[in-house]
C-alpha cells in the first residue's frame, strides 16, 4: 500500500488545475461539475464519475456547512486543486474555517456535529468509500485540508494490452 502511494507521488504531473470559490452552497454543484469536466479526457466509467462527484460534493459541503458554519459570506473561500499523474487523480480541498477538534471522531460513520440539521454523518465515510485514499488534516481556528486520490478510467489498461 505504502509502495503504491510512493510510486504515485513521484510520477510526473500530467495536468493540474486550481480554483477558489466562495463558500456558498450553490458552489457545491459547481465544484463537482468542474472536477467531472477535468477528468473527462481520462474516459472514466459512469461509476467512477459518480464516485468522484460524490466525494467532491461531500468535501465541499463539509467546508461550507461545518468549516464556515453555513454563514454564506462572500469572503469565505474554499480552494480546490486537482492534479493528474497519468490516470491518478489527486484532489485537495481546503478551507480557512473553524477546523475540526477531533478528526478521527468526525470521520466515524454516522457521527455528526449537527444532528438537528438533518446531516447524515456519512460525509467522510463516502469520501473514503468512493476514493482510493483519503487524508484529513485540521487545526481548530485555522481550517481543514482534505486530500483524496483515485485511479480513473480504463485507458491505461488498454495501453498495456496493446
Amino acid at each position: 500500500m505504502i509502495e503504491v502511494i510512493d510510486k504515485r507521488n513521484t510520477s510526473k504531473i500530467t495536468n493540474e488545475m486550481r480554483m477558489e470559490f466562495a463558500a456558498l452552497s450553490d458552489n457545491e454543484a459547481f465544484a463537482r461539475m468542474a472536477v467531472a469536466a477535468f477528468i473527462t479526457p481520462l474516459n472514466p466509467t459512469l461509476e467512477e464519475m459518480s464516485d468522484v462527484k460524490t466525494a467532491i460534493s461531500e468535501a465541499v459541503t463539509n467546508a461550507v456547512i461545518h468549516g464556515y458554519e453555513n454563514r454564506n459570506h462572500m469572503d469565505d473561500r474554499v480552494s480546490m486543486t486537482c492534479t493528474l499523474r497519468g490516470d491518478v487523480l489527486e484532489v485537495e480541498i481546503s478551507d480557512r474555517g473553524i477546523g475540526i477538534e477531533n478528526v478521527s471522531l468526525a470521520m466515524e460513520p454516522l457521527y455528526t456535529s449537527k444532528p438537528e440539521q438533518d446531516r447524515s454523518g456519512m460525509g467522510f465515510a463516502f469520501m473514503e468509500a468512493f476514493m482510493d485514499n483519503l487524508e484529513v488534516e485540521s487545526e481548530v481556528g485555522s481550517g481543514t485540508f482534505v486530500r483524496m486520490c483515485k485511479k480513473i478510467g480504463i485507458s491505461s489498461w488498454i495501453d498495456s494490452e496493446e
Partner: protein
Amino acid sequence: MEEYKVIDNYLMIRLPNEIDHHKSVDISTKADRYIMTKKVGNVVFDFERTTFMDSSGIGIILGRYKKIACFGGKVYAINADSRIRRILLLSGMQNIVEIISN
C-alpha cells in the same frame, strides 16, 4: 424541481435530478410541511429522475424517517438506479427504508 403528491396516506416525493446539501434543505422543509398539514403516515421517495446524490440525500431520508416512524409510518425508495442504490446500501438505509426494485 421536485414534485410532491399526496395519495391516501402516502406522500410521494419525486426527487430532482441532483440531490446535494444546497437542494436538501428545501426538500426537507417542504416534505415536513406536507407531513404536518396533510397528516400523511408514509413517505415514498421517487428517484426516477435522480442521477446524482450525496450524503445530504441520506440526511433527507433519515430526518423524514425520524418524523414518521414513531407513529408507525414507513419510508420507501422507488426507481433508484444502481448508483443511488449503492449510496443507500452503503449508509445502511435498507434497515429503515423499503427499497423497491422494478
